[in-house]
């Protein structure tokens, strides 16, 4: 009994926190299902965006022991590329080639993914690989890369904050429930998020590369000694992680636009998610993303009209501190991973 409880503590803590958040939100909405639903959808939406950054961060850390501080910059680049491709002017102007904005958006997303993947390969092969024996320096170096990427973005797109102009069908449509207008696009992003959460879980559970990744999290050297080219797996995982982050930026752009701040904002929140979930634990990252997303949305709702407008921005950090104090290795983290 004691062991089952011990084993399930993270899940119980998580359920308790999410239930607490939802209950608070429901009371905060005065029992209005429409209001409550809007908050929950907004929370899930933000949680999914966080997951797109945090999942790569978490798997890369687990497998390669690298906390890549450049990951937020990939999200930012994704947003810029998607914005650029979708809108007239800019580096790539596809408004003539693909006049339909509904068709242009998927192309913009693909462009974001490709750019993210390309920059990912460059970072892993060129800069990270020579530093595998010096983890602290990797931390510092990826931070430098993040600075450089922000500067490159400034050089190409200037320091202007772009807000999304070119509205397309999915973004414009709403459905009505409990007397409230719900955004179809947000629902769509949440759906994609869930598909990815389950898809990545299946890859990790069922495929050979998944087995290699999980084994590599335990003991890289032994995986290599079994005849598997671990460095190649590193490159693949790192590249995919960057591609997913850039995809996240692209898919968020219609809501958040494109700006320099995205890099730091999402990096800090995603790092908070990864750490509070337990570093290297995929379940922890998925659960943590949803938890933090919901917490932010609930805080945003609660802060309206009060003096605590700071609350939503510090919510991820508050949650992180709270959970680290309760469980020093994060929710799903094992004690030995440090």
């Amino acid at each position, binding site marked *: 009994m004691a062991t089952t409880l011990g084993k399930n503590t993270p899940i119980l803590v998580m359920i308790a926190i999410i239930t607490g958040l939802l209950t608070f939100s429901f009371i905060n909405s005065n029992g209005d299902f429409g209001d409550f639903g809007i908050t929950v959808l907004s929370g899930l939406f933000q949680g999914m965006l966080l997951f797109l950054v945090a999942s790569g961060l978490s798997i890369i850390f687990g497998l390669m022991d690298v906390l890549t501080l450049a990951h937020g910059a990939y999200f930012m680049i994704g947003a810029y590329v998607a914005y650029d491709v979708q809108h007239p002017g800019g580096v790539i102007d596809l408004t003539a080639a693909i006049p339909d904005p509904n068709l242009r958006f998927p192309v913009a997303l693909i462009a974001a993914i490709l750019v993210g993947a390309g920059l990912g390969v460059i970072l892993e092969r060129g800069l990270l690989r020579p530093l595998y024996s010096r983890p602290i320096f990797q931390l510092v170096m990826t931070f430098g890369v993040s600075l450089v990427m922000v500067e490159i973005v400034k050089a190409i797109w200037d320091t202007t904050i772009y807000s999304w102009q070119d509205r397309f069908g999915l973004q414009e449509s709403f459905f009505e429930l409990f007397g409230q207008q719900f955004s179809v696009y947000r629902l769509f992003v949440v759906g994609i998020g869930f598909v990815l959460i389950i898809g990545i879980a299946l890859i990790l559970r069922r495929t050979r590369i998944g087995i290699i990744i*999980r084994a590599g999290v335990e003991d890289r050297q032994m995986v290599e000694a079994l005849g598997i*080219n671990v460095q190649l797996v590193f490159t693949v995982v790192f590249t995919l992680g960057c591609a997913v982050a850039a995809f996240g930026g692209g898919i968020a752009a219609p809501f958040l636009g494109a700006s320099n701040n995205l890099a730091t904002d999402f990096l800090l929140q995603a790092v908070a998610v990864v750490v509070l979930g337990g570093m290297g634990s995929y379940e922890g990252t998925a659960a943590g993303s949803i938890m933090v997303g919901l917490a932010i949305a609930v805080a945003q709702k609660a802060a309206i009209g009060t003096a605590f407008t700071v609350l939503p921005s510090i919510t991820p950090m508050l949650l992180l501190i709270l959970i680290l104090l309760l469980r020093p290795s994060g929710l799903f983290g094992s004690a030995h991973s440090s």
Partner: protein
Amino acid sequence: MSAPVLEIRNIHTFIGQFHILEGVNVSVPQGSITVMLGRNGAGKTTTLKSVMGLTPPSQGAILFEGKPIHGKRPYHIAQLGIGYVPEHRAIFKTLTVRENLELAERQAHDLEKRIDFIFNLFPAMRQFYHYPAGNLSGGQQQMLAIARVLVPENRLLLIDEPSEGLAPVIIEELMAAIQKLAETSTVLLVEQNFRMASRLADRYVILDDGQSRVEGVMPELIKDEQLIQRYLGVA
């Protein structure tokens, strides 16, 4: 005697600034079980790791079936047909027994072809096939670590201290299994348990202070109590 499967020629290996191997020569003939003996810290484990490329030697040569393998990456060395069973049975505890074995596949269906052989050798593997390997007992984990190198076609097996921390009954079982393996592959073994080593191996190499001192055939070593006393400190 046929040409050696593995030949280690005067290798030097550093770990950090420490000069661990200072000239090790080992020759492992085809079909033999060769055991490396020596005190703790003599460099036995490092020799195996150097062969695998995990701690690459800075000097000297390592030949596998006549071809140099030093300087190659570990995965490449393994793919040539060398199986490595590390000390402390480094199995993947969160993976199931089946996943541990699948990981060792080098070609599709490797496991399918060998699974019956493995189940025959270690019946416990069948019983716990779908359970996390961390749930296995110490002896079963050691069996899994050995079973793992049986999945692909390995012509040379490097086995590091299989008996470490195991009960005598289980050691007997492991010995029988290793003897069975030696029918099809060559084995280079590191073993502290002299009784087990003397019964299993047909050849020996003694390492001391990072150097190989003596090598020969096992029956001669068993007779030479002076030598045993000098390097191994056991009677």
